[in-house]
């Protein structure tokens, strides 16, 4: 069974981890998602009073 051939084992292992650690995470991290959904928290934030800054 050619998968059991020990010759390229280490090279395949190292190379695959290299790609897995260096190439893919930056591509995934660059996907940003705006419009964060509001967390459903039980406490309602106090309504901040708003007044015209008459000046």
């Amino acid at each position, binding site marked *: 069974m050619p998968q*059991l051939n020990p010759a*390229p*084992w280490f090279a395949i292992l190292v*190379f695959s981890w290299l790609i897995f650690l260096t190439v893919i995470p930056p591509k995934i991290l660059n996907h940003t998602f705006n419009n964060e959904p509001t967390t459903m928290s039980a406490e309602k934030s106090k309504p901040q009073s708003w007044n015209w800054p008459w000046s």
Partner: protein
Amino acid sequence: MILSFFDQFMSPTWLGVPLIALALTLPWIMYPTPSSRWLNNRLLTLQGWFINRFTQQLLLPLNLPGHKWALIFTSLMIFLITLNLLGLLPYTFTPTTQLSLNMGLALPLWLATVIIGLRNQPTAALGHLLPEGTPTLLIPVLIIIETISLFIRPLALGVRLTANLTAGHLLIQLIATAVFVLLPLMPAVAILTATVLFLLTLLEVAVAMIQAYVFVLLLSLYLQENI
């Protein structure tokens, strides 16, 4: 040189270049890195949806410390599903049929979950070795059995992916050879076999996606036990 059906899994080289390097490097061209612009095209939107929904779905059962693993799990999922699906195209090589790659991914990640469990909560981690409600007489036997099942996890993880993909590719090659051989002899049977081949290919597409998902899901479950 006598060719056997297993030769498709030999790491291919061409003019001295190991083609597995190309098979591991080039697929990521299909995932354009998003810029800081808000305007996305269709491809970026779809990939973003997939990444977002997958991460949310996978992290549902994990507690907050487990969320540190979000990036590595999603990277692993993208890695495996891309390699699996691209391997179904003709004349491509599937790196995930190589035991070295799959064991190389499974063993360190499993070991990481075990070490995290033993460092942070050793009692709970060792407590997994004895299920609740075990009759007293069975305790020694069950601890041995559970330890064996713990150590067989990385092996199963790696070999599951390898075997599923290898078996799928092998079946496709066998049935395709059968169609080819039967065509001049019994065309009707060849057409039926070609139908079987078509259905098998659809199955292999599903298997490619499911096996990638199962790999990542099981790792997240092992993490959930230990974190």
